[in-house]
């Protein structure tokens, strides 16, 4: 990297116009991401953004890095494959709450458990936006949606509570309307070594109502001044809060990542010895006694 290269949010913008509805929270997420990438001086061609399917999953198309808009729910395994084969790349997963918690929930669990070296930015709008307004795993109980005409019979899940219990090594929450705060949290998530989960509360104005931004903003709370982010128990207390929504870094620790562990496996397997030749590999099938 030469010193005279300047990284600004514009470095990462392309001329594709987002398909999102005016007022969609995802614009704020995108703007924060442009800023975070610029502040971190992420080299565009060394950055890969992978998404699933949903309104939110359209995001990689709008960022001038490598981008891959994949299948509903499958961004995390694809991103894991990218990171394991090309560890020098920055790998970021973006997508919706339906994508990451319903159809892709199992991958979320395992990426966190493995501490896969990716940051997962979930745009949580408490609804299925793209398919026009059905209930998501984050839709509050009782809410009427297109698929819960008589009120949602199921309890909602707090994605941060899941991430903490799945073993994620970094868990944060932010509101897309707060671009400045979100930029800072994204920077920390992207910079984190290991699996970072950032729950972006990102209102869907079309299916959750015009006043979502206002309602959510009123519920936001900063982290308690004495918050101990190294404790899972303390972090858990800031999930499923009911009324208030705490934003900030809820949980953070340092532990070996999936890439570290795979290097360790290579070391255990071969150490400093010369790698085996084909003849070495075939030896086990050859009666050479």
């Amino acid at each position, binding site marked *: 990297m030469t010193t005279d290269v300047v990284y600004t949010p514009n470095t990462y913008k392309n001329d594709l116009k987002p398909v999102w509805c005016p007022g969609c929270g995802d614009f704020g997420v995108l703007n924060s991401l442009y800023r975070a990438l610029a502040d971190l001086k992420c080299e565009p061609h*060394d950055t890969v953004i992978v998404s699933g399917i949903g309104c939110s999953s359209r995001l990689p198309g709008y960022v001038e890095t490598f*981008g891959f808009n*994949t*299948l509903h729910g499958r961004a*995390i395994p694809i991103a*894991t494959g990218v990171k394991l*084969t090309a560890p020098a790349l920055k790998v970021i997963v973006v997508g919706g709450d339906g994508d990451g918690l319903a159809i892709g929930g199992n991958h979320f669990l395992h990426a966190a458990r493995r501490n896969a070296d990716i940051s997962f930015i979930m745009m949580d709008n408490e609804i299925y936006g793209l398919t026009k307004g059905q209930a998501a795993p984050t839709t509050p109980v009782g809410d009427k949606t297109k698929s819960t005409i008589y009120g949602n019979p199921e309890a909602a899940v707090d994605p941060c509570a899941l991430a903490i219990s799945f073993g994620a090594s970094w868990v944060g929450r932010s509101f897309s309307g707060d671009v400045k705060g979100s930029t800072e949290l994204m920077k920390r998530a992207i910079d984190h070594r290991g699996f970072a989960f950032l729950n972006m509360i990102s209102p869907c104005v079309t299916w959750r109502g015009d006043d979502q931004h206002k309602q959510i903003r009123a519920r936001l709370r900063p982290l308690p001044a004495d918050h101990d982010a190294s404790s899972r128990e303390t972090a858990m207390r800031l999930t499923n809060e009911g009324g208030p929504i705490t934003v900030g870094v809820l949980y953070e620790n340092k532990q070996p990542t999936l890439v570290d562990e795979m290097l360790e496996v290579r070391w255990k397997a071969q150490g400093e010895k010369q790698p085996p030749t*084909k003849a070495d590999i*075939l030896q086990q099938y050859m*009666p050479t006694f």
Partner: protein
Amino acid sequence: MKQQLTLSIVGSGGDGAVAAGDILSMACARQGLHIIKTEAYGPQIRGGESSCTVRMSSSPIYAQADAIDALVVFSWADFARFRNELVIGPEAVVLHDSDDPAPDEIASHPGRKIVGIPFAKLAKEVGAPNGKNILSLGVVSAVFGLPADAIRNALKNRFKKKTAAVVEANLKAFEAGLTAGAALSVGDQRLQYTPGTPMLLMAGNEASAVGAVDAGCRFFAGYPITPSSEILHFMSEWLPRIGGTCLQTEDELAAIGAVVGGSFAGVKSMTSTSGPGLSLMSEMLGLSAMAEIPAVVVNVQRGGPSTGLPTKSEQSDLMHAVYGGHGDMPRAVIAPVDVEDSYHATVEAFNIAEEFQMPVIVLTDQSIAQRRETLAADSLVHEVVDRRIATPEELNEYRRYRLTATGVSPMAIPGMPGGMYQTNGLEHDEQGRPSSMFVMHEKMNAKRYSKLDALAKKYRLFRRYGPEKADLGIICYGSSMGPVREALDQLAAEGLRVAAFVPRLIMPLPAADLEKFISDCDQILVLELTYAAQLYQYLRAQVDLPRGKTHKFSRSGGRSLGINEVIEQVKRVLVPSHQVEEVLA
């Protein structure tokens, strides 16, 4: 003297029937004998009945024998479990423990030699209470003239991590067996052979894994499933040693996802699975086709649908492999015909995937994947196609999906300056940007499908056996090749003119070659192990099968196709007076 010999050893968990078969096979491979070794197990996870069948021959063999010439049984109760699978030949030598006399229905054949030997007692006497399996090898070696020195060496090699006392006890058991065997009078049962150069002894799954490594695969992601897990095990052991990575994923959705991710990032990647896993992978294979990312899946067929027959072979994933998945989805399907070919087919799968940027399924089956076969030591060599990365000129105004004459577009990989693109499972334009316009969709479908034309022209992969012009032409694929090839030799000896066409590339078929074959044969017989005649249905859609002159034989898997079964089916067509023998036991 015999030209070939098929021996089964049957026991329960601790008897070491399979270990004895392994030692014998390795010894014979050392002497350059041709071997096909199969195993079968009872339903228990551990310690149930097991059987091991070793076919030995001085000339090449292509399938397991229909009937066995020699049987070692430690307990008839265990044998009962395999009654439907192990057919005892009319002149077989049956060696059983004297403590457990042979049941009447087995002993009552006048041609058979039924011999009681106190296996357990003798083994105990020489101080090897766990060595009755090895003792039986001594008996077998004496009776059938199998190489005693090589067996001793194979035995020492097998037990090289055990204590000297254990090795010594087993060698004593072997000698005791030799003595006991030499004392028997069962006529001349010796196998005729001249020792040749040592051969590799390996299973199809292992050959596929070696092929993948040779092709340059350095990332494997998989989820355990019988009968494919040996590939995962191999990769787990060897990939880290050569600088690669093996990931056991949470399911097959993640396995094929990680493979697509790894390949997108520039590393040749593969997964392996069986039917249930292939079903889960369908959607992601569509993404591989749509985003034009090379991906290789080895699918080891077993009985289906659903959980089906996890440990038994069938050829019933064919339709899924060639047509499975939604949308118009070009893919290649390649089917190996034996163990050695599992190596070549896997390298070819990578070559095709890389050259045409599409998913490739290696469609093998349990019988090839899990049987051990001898192969020439130098047979595992195949030309490798490297990934072609976009050149600096192509990066000028780079378009990932540029429309080209071959349909193949320049591929950049993450980390390449100037190669940036945003791609999609959505239909997209040349740059990878989403588009739902009919015109673009049509253009891009045409681009993706044109790769199949180029592929079919370049890769005409098939085997053809028998006379140029034939009264009957058999069309089959995969593991059916073995019994068909052996049947052809026997039929030719009887004066019947029968040929066989075995496509290795199933999608796209080598259609011109197949059509030529069809026109060179008076009648056609399509032969396969699926109840629903999937190959026959597929061929009907792909080529003109002559009406009224095309016959089919398709039955459920669960037991491999027999050589005699093929002969019977041929005669059913060619010899009108022939009464087909019912082969179902």
